[in-house]
């Protein structure tokens, strides 16, 4: 069997890469993808702990996380379409109305 630590380390690596993508990318759609990547990393940790502790609760939580991610993607991409329509750009740095 694969040790649980390996899954957790992979999860941490994927989460870190998600943060890097979120901070470095400028395209608003790619930022959403970075959020999905981080959610996926957390899901991996959930399933690893669930299998390691012998309780299926973690997998139920993963299902909830997937539902929330789907809802977030639907609403978030609606906002992206609206922003792109108003600003004529997908660059997040052009969305600066709240900036001082």
């Amino acid at each position, binding site marked *: 069997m694969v040790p*649980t630590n390996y899954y957790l*380390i992979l999860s941490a690596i994927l989460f870190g890469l998600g943060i890097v993508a979120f901070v470095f990318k400028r395209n608003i759609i790619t930022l959403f993808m970075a959020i999905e*990547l981080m959610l996926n990393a957390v899901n991996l940790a959930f399933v690893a702990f669930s299998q390691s502790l012998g309780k299926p609760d973690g997998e139920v939580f993963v299902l909830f996380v997937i539902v929330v991610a789907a809802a977030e993607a639907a609403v978030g991409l609606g906002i992206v379409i609206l922003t792109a329509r108003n600003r004529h750009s997908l660059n997040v740095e052009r969305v600066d109305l709240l900036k001082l």
Partner: protein
Amino acid sequence: MTAPLIIFFVLAALAIFGAVSLILQRHPIYSALSLIVVMVALAGLYLLMGAEFVAAVQIIVYGGAIMVLFVFVIMLLNAGLEERTNFSGLATYAGIPLALAVSGFIAAAIARSGGYLPAPAPSGALTSTKTLSMLLFTEFVYPFELTSFLILVAILGAIVLAQREN
């Protein structure tokens, strides 16, 4: 090296490759395809752990529905190459230390607590789809019903947001 370990390393390398490719690609459609690679690799890892229902949901909902939504929006907005801007210095000077710090904290926590984690159970036996559904409709029935409200609200929100105002 046993077979599960080899499969794990192949899938983990595929997932990390996809995530790095998501960062390096400058066109959003290539980033989306890289993310699909990550999701399929993670579904394989779930199968390896014996969580077959989660693996199926991962493929259907994440790899299917959500990524199709992303690709649709990318093509709808005709997203081109990412613009390079010169005032993203904060990202360079705060982003790398931030990512390193978070990854370091998580890795330190894993390294400190890792020895006490019990060994994984033999796969497939304890989290069958039946067990999962029993749990979902008995113990977690209120969160389950709340997610249906969440989806309803999300549908309404997406419709309100996406409609063209007169």
